[in-house]
């Protein structure tokens, strides 16, 4: 027997964990297996593996999920050891029980460049003044992920606010509004829309004097960096209170008998010392933290607020993120942003839906099922002889049929089934077609709101048409150019032009996303402009369109190159002698012969484009405020970032399916008419 441990650490923290495990093995003789799970997939892996008995004995992760996981039965309560900092135990307490052995605590602190800032600011006024002093062309006095609710927590709490009050969002409270106003005053000194990577880059290049981030940021730095607690909010006299995450060793049900012993060893003084000295962790055990960064973290922890464990906090964060983006962009005043955010949250968190009676649905489903079975039976019955004679042939297609059934039909039917339910705080409630009615009548939003189905449909149709038009134009033009006799190095060009297709599309999308960066992006540098590409609908749409055109034209080019080969050169020469110039030849001879060959590619390309999730998700991510969201990415957002409304999202998916079904029926007819 051995104790299996899942964690998402890397670098020094991972090494320290392994060392601690080795020590424990030596002392106890118990075998410990340390398994690294990628951070991005950690939660979903836990939620799928553990309930099916495929989980580990011990999970090492932050405390934010204990609310959900304790409900799901993914983790077990325990009695923590003595000698821990009380606030770490408190963070792991939910419903009166403690759900893990606290190991370490982390929170954002104020990080600064000691070469530039001699004395860290003690108040926000001082911080603003320092930031102003160190802001110039390409330089920022302060850099942090200002548009995320997580980092905003420090100010929100400092102004006396809280994201949830008694389980309800308080996004429009006076302190919330004040905190938004404060962020607006920071905006001139902040980079636009920074990601964690961008903040790191700014600091490493010496272009950010102060940064708000946590110990993970320090671990990745190449230049000296100093830490201090976040400043006191001048307006209230209260300290800024960032969110605190407590990492813990949690026990999974059915764990090995030695799992608790290992968790206790890790949390205890011996394990803590190893993790502190080798992994540079601010450990939960009450041992001295003398390293300046760890000391700062300990000091910061005194005012920090544990990240709420309420599952609803995610929805409130989503609404808060939106408000922050809008305020930082200057799109709306802090007051309006606060009110909008609260209204948005209300629309996301729906009251418990009225369950519908499944009876009429069951009757209709039974009727349809019988009808289908009857039709299938009749179809098979009338073809028995034919089936018998071709039995081997049917056998050959059987594996593919099974694969399609399992991979396409089953998920589709499950998805369609889920669309008849509403998800409410993790429960499924049967609501019949209510999700569809809700979506198609745009019950929760005005038609012109980016959240409405019809707005997204309009964007998606415009997106598809614009893309396909550009793909065809560019693809055909390049294919024609490649045919010209004066082109040298033709194979090289052909290979180069197919390259965008050969590179995995998510990589391409990420590269374009970086190129459209407002401060550092290659696009703005080339244009010599300062366009905030994700700040307005048309700019963001253009950025998405550019990316997807880059991805899409090679396909059309390759199809065109093939189709052009089938057009005899004679025809063009005949037209040349008949007196046709280049464009006349293209219009009257080449295009009429090319178009029928291109039509199937256009049909296929438009379906791909209609459902082009990757580009929208990775380039604009729906910015600004969901305006560039497509139907498919809307469905994704409803399922995964706006409170897990799986039923609602499935209804979206089913509607998308029917839209595309109708489209394919129309185009099939077009294609059939085109056949000679």
């Amino acid at each position, binding site marked *: 027997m051995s104790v299996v441990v899942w964690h998402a650490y890397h670098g020094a923290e991972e090494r320290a964990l392994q060392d601690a495990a080795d020590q424990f093995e030596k002392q106890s003789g118990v075998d410990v297996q340390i398994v690294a799970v990628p951070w991005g997939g950690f939660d979903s892996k836990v939620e799928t593996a553990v309930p099916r008995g495929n989980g580990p004995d011990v999970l090492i992760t932050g405390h934010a999920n204990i609310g959900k996981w304790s409900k799901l039965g993914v983790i077990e309560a325990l009695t923590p050891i003595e000698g821990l900092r009380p606030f770490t135990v408190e963070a792991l307490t939910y419903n009166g029980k403690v759900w893990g052995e606290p190991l370490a605590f982390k929170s954002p602190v104020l990080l600064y460049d000691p070469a530039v800032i001699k004395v860290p600011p003690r108040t926000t006024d001082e911080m603003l003044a320092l930031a102003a002093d160190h802001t110039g062309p390409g330089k920022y006095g302060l850099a942090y992920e200002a548009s995320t609710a997580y980092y905003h927590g420090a100010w929100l709490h400092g102004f006396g606010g809280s994201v949830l009050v008694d389980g309800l969002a308080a996004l429009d409270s006076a302190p919330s509004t004040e905190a938004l106003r404060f962020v607006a005053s920071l905006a001139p000194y902040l980079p636009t829309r920074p990601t964690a990577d961008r903040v790191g880059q700014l600091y490493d290049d010496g272009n950010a004097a102060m940064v708000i981030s946590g110990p993970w940021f320090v671990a990745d730095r190449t230049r000296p960096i100093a830490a201090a607690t976040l400043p006191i909010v001048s307006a209230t006299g209260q300290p800024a209170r960032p969110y605190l995450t407590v990492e813990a060793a949690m026990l999974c049900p059915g764990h090995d008998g030695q799992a608790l012993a290992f968790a206790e060893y890790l949390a205890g003084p011996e394990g803590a010392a190893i993790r502190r000295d080798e992994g540079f962790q601010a450990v939960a055990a009450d041992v001295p933290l003398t390293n300046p960064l760890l000391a700062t973290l300990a000091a910061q922890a005194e005012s920090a607020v544990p990240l709420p464990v309420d599952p609803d906090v995610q929805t409130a964060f989503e609404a808060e993120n939106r408000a922050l983006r809008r305020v930082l962009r200057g799109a709306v005043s802090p007051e309006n942003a606060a009110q909008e955010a609260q209204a948005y949250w209300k629309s996301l968190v729906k009251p418990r839906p009225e369950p519908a009676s499944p009876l009429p649905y069951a009757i209709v489903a039974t009727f349809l099922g019988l009808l289908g079975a009857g039709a299938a039976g009749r179809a098979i019955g009338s073809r028995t002889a034919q089936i018998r004679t071709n039995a081997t042939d049917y056998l050959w297609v059987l594996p593919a049929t099974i694969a399609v059934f399992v991979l396409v039909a089953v998920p589709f039917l499950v998805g369609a089934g889920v669309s008849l339910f509403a998800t409410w705080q993790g429960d499924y409630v049967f609501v019949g077609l209510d999700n569809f009615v809700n979506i198609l009548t745009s019950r929760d939003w005005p038609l012109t709101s980016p959240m409405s189905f019809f707005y997204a449909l309009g964007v998606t149709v415009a997106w598809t048409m614009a893309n396909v038009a550009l793909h065809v134009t560019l693809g055909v033009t390049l294919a024609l150019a490649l045919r010209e006799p004066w082109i040298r190095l033709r194979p090289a060009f052909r290979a180069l032009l197919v390259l965008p297709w050969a590179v995995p599309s998510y990589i391409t999308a990420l590269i374009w996303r970086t190129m459209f960066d407002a401060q550092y992006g290659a696009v703005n540098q080339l244009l010599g402009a300062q366009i905030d590409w994700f700040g307005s609908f048309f700019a963001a749409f253009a950025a998405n369109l550019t990316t997807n055109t880059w991805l899409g034209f090679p396909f059309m080019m390759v199809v065109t190159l093939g189709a052009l080969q089938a057009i*005899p050169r*004679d*025809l063009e*020469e*005949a*037209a*040349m*002698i*008949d*007196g*046709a*110039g280049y464009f*006349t030849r293209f219009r*009257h*001879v080449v295009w*009429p*012969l090319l178009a029928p060959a291109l039509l199937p590619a256009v049909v296929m390309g438009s379906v791909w484009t209609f459902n082009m999730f990757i580009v929208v998700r990775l380039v604009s991510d729906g910015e600004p405020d969901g305006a560039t969201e497509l139907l498919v990415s809307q469905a994704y957002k409803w399922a995964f970032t706006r409170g897990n409304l799986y039923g609602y999202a499935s209804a979206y998916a089913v509607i998308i399916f029917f839209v595309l079904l109708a489209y394919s029926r129309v185009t099939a007819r077009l294609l059939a008419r085109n056949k*000679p």
Partner: protein
Amino acid sequence: MARIRLDAVQKRFGATRVLDRVDLDVADGEYIVLLGRSGCGKSTLLRCIAGLEEVSEGRVHIGDRDVTDVSPRDRDVAMVFQSYALYPHMTVARNLAFALEIRSRPRAEIDAAVKDAADLLDIAHLLDRLPAQLSGGQRQRVAMGRAIVRRPAVFLFDEPLSNLDASLRHHMRLELKRLHKRLRGTFVHVTHDQVEAMTLGDRMVLLDGGVVQQVGSPRDVYETPANLFVAKFIGSPQMNLWEAQGHGAHTRVQGVDVDVPVPADGKYTLGVRPNDVRIEAGAPMTAKVEIIEALGDEAFVHLLWGEQRVVARVDPRTAYDVGEDVRFTFGRAHRFDTTTGSRLP
């Protein structure tokens, strides 16, 4: 008006020389045939006249104009392609009208021109069809119709008959001849078929390896081939050729004394067309009959003459036995320089 003049035209594709200093003067209204094996450069030469290929060196004149750098559409030429190159998505009527339509001619003029051409070629009943709905011969006519509808100064034909079966080809040959009489245009016709060249051309141009071997009327070329290549290429069966040694009045071919009409001194290649081999009793030379080819209205006997072979054209009504000895003599003979291949007087 539509005289064609080529001055030292050269065409190279990379390092390959396809046409080597071709000089040619085609008179207005002349029907000239470019003849040669495939790959000899005849189609390239035609495409240089059309402007579909740029010449590497030299000049091309059509009428009074130097058109070397003029695009095909401004050369006032029409071309019939071997594949016919009909626009597959247009009806016959539109195929015919296309050249006039893109020149924005008045509708009435276009309709009249299409009708004239269709009547002339007997394709008026096909005007509404698509090329895919036509037979090979009908497509051929439409292709010709497309050329004549514009009344160009020069008509270019690139192997126009090679995709037709034998009887249709014969028929179309006559049609082409008639067409030429009616239109009085300058016709340039490319073919690898010597019968086509002999029957159609006012003059023919023999090409080999991108070099003009001989230009002349079919009669000239047949009667006085300029070199061994022409001698071998024109005439079927091929001209009999032997290495000969002349010494005063005596001429010997492989140790056998032969009787030639005009003896000459030295080594040379002796050529006698099968027509000019006469089998007669009492003739000076003897050979054995090896094979008899009877073609109905004519016949050829293949003779073994020592180690040499002789082909003779004979009266099909005369019977010969294989293995029989016959006596023969030569009528007209040709002499060629063995090393250079050129004709000797």
